[in-house]
């Protein structure tokens, strides 16, 4: 009796708005999704009904409390996309980089703003097309609570399917734009990248905003790199400082295949990035890089999991964060090496640069190694601006703020050096410069 009483007195952490959003999504799904996708959405609904909603009581969510997302309330974004002009979209283009553009407005694909034409070697399909697409094939919705919710709410998305041997030189740029109509809504854009044997493709996903409103985005990206395929994926977050995002990136790497995935976080109030990699073939190669530059009370949590299930694959991950004001970073990196996965190489590092005494970082490496012939290393460092380096720069006539910016760019450069698309690297450098100039006050620089 007393147990029951205690239970009811604890507030339910689950978002009360989720049920009505799921019901609204179900109406749309019935009309638009293929039977296969519909089955996945229903599966996700069942998972969502049972899964524990994250609270800091759970080990995986110890440092990130999604209570504000749960409170909301948020409702399913309108299926009629708001009007966004070509000029608006242009603001989010990457200068000097020809791309094939795919635009989501408040979570809904805008066909007029997107180039969905059939390219040779790569087929772009809308998930709503009733086509049989491999949506949900990587299965994150079966265990991750937010991926389950996103999949239960699934109402739009694209699948990029690359033919065997096709080398797609022009990157796909998926631009997710939040407009003022997104206020208090939940958006669940979905991308599936299916790279067939020996193909190469680059996909850039930007999350941007035209309005400083509050919304939650639950993007799910699935990347399947078949034998000998090479996929580069970039997620670039510059959302409204009121907004929330929980992203799920699932990656499957077959034999001799390579995936390089980057997460760049600049905007957002509370962001959680789950990246999950399965190395299912020998000689697979995974590179996970992340860079956060935060100010104010921003919070970004990168949670990665790399699972080596076959011998002789290699994973490298390098996450760096620069934290000003009272911002907070979290990094958890789990590396699992199965007993059969001998000759695995896994390298992980997490480095933080704190620009303010009130900023903080939590880092949590976890190695679960069942094989004995492996090379696995991990390391984490936390530091402030090097006072000797600051003095050196200033002694040459460079003012304090410029000197600080030099050192921040230098700190970031290691992660940016793996961005093989030069125009994109410069674009990200530009984000760092702008953010340093606008949001990060030089006064906060540690002396």
């Amino acid at each position, binding site marked *: 009796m007393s147990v029951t009483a205690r239970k009811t007195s604890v507030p339910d952490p689950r978002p009360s708005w989720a049920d009505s959003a799921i019901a609204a999504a179900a109406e749309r799904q019935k009309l638009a999704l293929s039977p296969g996708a519909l089955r996945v959405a229903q599966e996700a609904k069942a998972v969502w009904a049972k899964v524990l909603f994250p609270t800091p009581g759970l080990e995986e969510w110890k440092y990130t409390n999604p209570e504000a997302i749960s409170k909301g309330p948020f409702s399913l974004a309108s299926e009629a996309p708001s009007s966004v002009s070509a000029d608006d979209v242009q603001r989010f283009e990457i200068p000097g980089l020809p791309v094939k553009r795919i635009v989501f407005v408040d979570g809904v694909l805008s066909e007029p703003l997107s180039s969905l034409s059939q390219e040779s070697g790569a087929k772009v399909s809308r998930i709503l097309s009733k086509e049989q697409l491999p949506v949900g094939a990587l299965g994150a919705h079966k265990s991750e609570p937010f991926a389950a919710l996103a999949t239960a709410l699934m109402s739009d998305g694209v699948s990029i399917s690359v033919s065997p041997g096709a080398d797609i030189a022009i990157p796909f740029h998926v631009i997710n734009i939040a407009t003022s109509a997104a206020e208090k809504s939940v958006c669940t854009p979905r991308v599936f990248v299916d790279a067939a044997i020996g193909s190469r493709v680059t996909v850039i996903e930007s999350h941007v905003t035209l309005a400083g409103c509050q919304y939650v985005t639950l993007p799910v990206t699935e990347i399947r790199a078949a034998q000998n395929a090479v996929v580069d994926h970039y997620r670039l977050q510059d959302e409204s400082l009121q907004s929330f995002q929980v992203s799920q990136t699932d990656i499957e790497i077959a034999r001799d295949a390579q995936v390089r995935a980057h997460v760049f976080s600049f905007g957002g109030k509370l962001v959680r990035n789950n990246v999950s990699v399965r190395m299912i073939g020998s000689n697979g190669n995974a590179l996970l890089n992340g860079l956060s530059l935060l100010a104010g009370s921003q919070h970004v949590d990168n949670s990665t999991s790399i699972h080596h299930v076959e011998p002789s694959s290699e994973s490298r991950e390098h996450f760096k964060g620069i934290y000003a004001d009272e911002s907070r970073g979290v990094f958890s990196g789990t590396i699992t090496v199965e007993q059969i996965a001998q000759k695995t190489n896994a390298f992980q590092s997490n480095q933080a640069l704190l620009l303010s005494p009130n900023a903080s970082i939590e880092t949590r490496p976890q190695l679960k190694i069942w094989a004995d012939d492996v090379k696995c290393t991990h390391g984490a460092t936390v530091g402030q601006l*090097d*006072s*000797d*380096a600051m*003095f*050196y*720069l*200033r*002694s*040459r*006539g*460079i*003012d*304090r703020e*410029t*000197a600080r910016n*030099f*050192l921040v*760019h*230098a*700190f*970031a*450069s*290691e992660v940016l050096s793996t961005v093989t698309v030069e125009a994109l690297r410069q674009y990200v450098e530009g984000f760092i410069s702008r953010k340093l100039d606008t949001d990060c006050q030089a006064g906060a620089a540690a*002396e």
Partner: protein
Amino acid sequence: MSLLKITDLHARIEGDGREILKGISLEIKPGEVHAIMGVNGSGKSTLANILGGKEGYEVTGGSITFDGKELLELDPEVRAREGLFLAFQYPVELPGVLTTYFLRTALNSVREHKGLPPMSVRDFSALVKEKAKLLELSDEMLKRAVNEGFSGGEKKRNEVFQMAVLEPKLAILDETDSGLDIDALQIVAEGVNRLRSKQNGMLVITHYQRLLNYIVPDVVHVMIDGRIVQSGGKDLALKLEGQGYAAFKDTAAA
């Protein structure tokens, strides 16, 4: 007017009661090269760091004027723009900071302070090429990040190279000769000597007399335990080499 005038300077490391500089006075006039010689721990580098404006030191007495201005009131970057240059004993490596970008920003900060427009990329390239040749720095080294992977000697040459580009009024060389072989020493000295002029001054801090064969000073000061115990002409350096610091220690104690 003097270029640099240090009057009865007392200083200690912040948060440490022990006095390191115990009343230093010296005056450098335009065109003069002064050398300060002393053993490790005599306070030479403390003096250089205080002149450069490094944090972590507390000046407890005395004053420093540089070109008529109260030096201690100026931020390090303003000192540099006013024409003071500190060649570091241990230049830091700045991975990710490209040498030419760094140096052009520095030069343009100095120029802006003087009311000059930024130097064009083309003029800057020409200037860098000329000065790099003087210091025998290769193109490859200039393309790297500041001092990254440089040997000790290369770092010192890079210091003098930066000095040659920035053309300061007063250069302070803090043990620029340490860790240099004879060839590198000659290259560095040649770079330094090119900067000597009727208007400019230099303060050469060293442990050894050897450097002063190549950069011939007008005045030599012997520093022991935070004090200048004797000043004289260039022959003083030779005397020091011959007799050792011990002889001077006695005069300091007397």
